[in-house]
């Protein structure tokens, strides 16, 4: 599945069930990782195949490599402190491999670093 063809292919590092952290890569341009999931933890729902990286595709780079894409689920209560709804409510979206890291084995002390300021005041999703 995906845009594989003869292009170089990155091996998927994650699979369904893996807990992952979303990195804050701070990249400009046609980035498909919304601010609201950066530095948050979620769980890989499934692999979606591999595609040309939209950050490169948007500036005409079509020689690859194709990058694995995953659907990742986040508990709404992990995304929004004041979320009103069921603790089972989830947000699911697609993230490219290079935006993900294995979730830390043990949670960090206290609250994870948050980027709400940037999101609310001009950090455009």
């Amino acid at each position, binding site marked *: *599945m*995906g*845009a594989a063809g003869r292009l170089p292919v990155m091996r998927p590092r994650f699979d369904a069930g893996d807990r992952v952290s979303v990195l804050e890569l701070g990249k400009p341009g046609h980035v*498909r*990782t*919304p601010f*609201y999931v950066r530095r948050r933890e979620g769980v890989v729902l499934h692999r*979606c*195949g591999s*595609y040309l990286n*939209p950050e490169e595709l948007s500036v005409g780079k079509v020689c690859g490599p194709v990058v694995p*894409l995953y*659907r990742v*689920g986040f508990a*709404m209560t992990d*995304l*929004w402190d004041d*979320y*009103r*709804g*069921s603790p*089972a*409510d*989830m*947000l*699911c*979206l*697609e*993230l*490219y491999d290079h935006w993900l890291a294995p979730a830390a084995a043990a949670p960090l002390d206290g609250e994870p670093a948050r980027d709400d300021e940037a999101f609310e005041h001009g950090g455009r*999703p």
Partner: protein
Amino acid sequence: MSDHDHAHDHDHDHGHGHDAHEPLVVEDDAGNIEGQILVDALQTLLVERGLVFPGEVRREIERLESPGAHLGARLVARAWVDDDYRRRLLADGKSAAAELGVGVGEAQLIVVENDATTHNLVCCTLCSCYPRSILGQPPAWYISKAYRSRAAREPRAVLEEFGLKVPDEARVLVHDSNADMRYLVLPQRPAGSEAMSEDQLAGLVTRDCMIGVSVVGPVS
């Protein structure tokens, strides 16, 4: 966009906080739409230089706008009457659509199924990604900033504004179409529809049910 009057000088630096891109799709006091003026100018140039033929743009728009929600409704109705098809649709939406002669132009179609304990809602927080090849062009509210941000932030409140109260004990799954996949909600088959044919069932399935802001009501 704010409703106060201001000189529309198009230097996007005029001291109040609206997004620089908004005027592209909002007409000014004279009824002009900035985006349309740009598109018309570009098209005139392309035609003058022989790169585009008159009518070609119109035909392309017609092609883009010809798919409609009736295509998605056919997939849903078939899934309701054929359990094997339903499983194939959930496993690989694009291939299952092709079985019915419905071409999905997007990379993949992920079909998410509502049931008694799960309600699915589709949005695109970053722009306006939408399964256009099976639902047509998205409604204006789908691409509004209010829907795009609030669907991810407070989906239950948004659904209530659409007239849908999801029970507290059911879970809400929001699908942000932020990258290459496109999403279709498979609604629950309504009570009272047991005797209906596949075509009649397709007639019950609305666009909003397949986005997830509504459900298919009981048949009386």
